């Protein structure tokens, strides 16, 4: 199986520039997964032992709110979903649900964590790539928070 996954993982921007050994290791931690529309992909509070690279379809991040269950972010083909595997206590902070049928790679987080611990150079590169992703998400979340489509306050000269 890994021989078919390897070229696809090697091409993914998350792993670009990694040497052959690292790609082999990542491939050995990866598997193909499929979800049907409506499937719960991950559940808040449960161990985050994996993350996903979406190949096709859409996954939504859901959280309970006073108005009921809310969708706060969606991810599509090419996106990386989940960073809880990298940050203690390694639990999902939200639910993930397949909004459509989804094909994805699931990467075993424990397996990659071990590699990060034993190979700090690899670990640092992974950290940098996930930090960039988290920073992008944080910026997008801030924009969601400040209500960028709202009516502007008066910008008029009196």
């Amino acid at each position: 199986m890994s021989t078919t996954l390897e070229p696809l993982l090697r091409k993914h921007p998350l792993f670009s520039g990694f040497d052959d050994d690292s790609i082999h290791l990542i491939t050995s931690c990866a598997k193909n997964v499929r979800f049907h529309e409506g499937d719960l992909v991950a559940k808040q509070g449960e161990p985050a032992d994996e993350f996903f690279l979406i190949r096709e379809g859409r996954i939504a991040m859901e959280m309970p709110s006073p108005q009921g269950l809310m969708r706060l972010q969606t991810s599509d083909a090419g996106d990386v979903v989940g960073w809880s595997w990298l940050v203690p206590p390694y639990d999902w902070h939200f639910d993930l649900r397949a909004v459509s049928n989804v094909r994805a790679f699931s990467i075993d987080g424990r397996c990659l964590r071990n590699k990060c611990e034993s190979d700090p150079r690899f670990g640092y590169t992974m950290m940098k790539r996930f930090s960039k992703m988290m920073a992008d998400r944080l910026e997008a979340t801030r924009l969601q928070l400040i209500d960028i489509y709202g009516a502007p306050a008066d910008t008029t000269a009196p």
Partner: protein
Amino acid sequence: MSSVLHPPDASALQAGSMLPEPWVVVSRLEENADTFTIELRPAEEGTLRPFAPGQFNMLYAFGTGESAISISGSPENSDTRVHTIRRVGTVTSALDRLAPGDTIGLRGPFGSAWPIEELPGRDLVFVAGGIGLAPLRPAILHALAHRKDYGRIVILAGARSPEDLIFHDELLEWKEEPDVEVKLTVDRAGIDWYHHVGVVTTLIPQADFDPANAVAMVCGPEIMMRFTAVELNKNGLPDSRLFVTLERNMKCAVGICGHCQFGPEFICRDGPVFRYDHIHHWFSQREV
């Protein structure tokens, strides 16, 4: 294909004057809780003037006051003018109370336009935030009516919530057109929403356009346009092929009173559509 693009010169397009003319409300449609669309026809002959997508009219609610409102209807062979209005204060609330048969005053059209007719062969990227879809709609309708003149058409629309999205059904119809990509996103949604959730800028990397040839037209609150420009730049589209439309409180609409000054520009006279690199400098400055 000219490589240097400009919005059509506002002075060449100005048709309106200082004197409002009577127009009659033909129909009215609720878009969402605070936004409605009215269709107007001239009460007197000879007052229907052609407009270019992106231009606005001054709508006068008698006894209350005037507001600048973009034309949101099709520029093709129409004998009415359509305006989509968000109720925010005194004048827009008075306009909200209008019913079919009522008369209002109208001056216009005014201002510069989207350079849509200068763009044959180009990929078109429309990015709208909230009610910003209204001033873009005439350009989108023009592009769809002349579909073969353009490359790919991408329409990215963001709103606070699914209920805040305007022209929702029409957006879904446009999505069915050949080679038209429509992506909708909201800041938050319930579990019955199947489109994107996230700020509109996150749709840009997924959109299928050729950055070497595309022209973007962006309309929404200034902060949304600023972040959209950054993301378009990151995806290879330069400020010189990016157009935005600006709003400032406006009184005379003919470049005299100075109410709508933005840096060295008067929005009514030089805008509201600007090429982004021409005003970029002022965009990043507060209190301008």
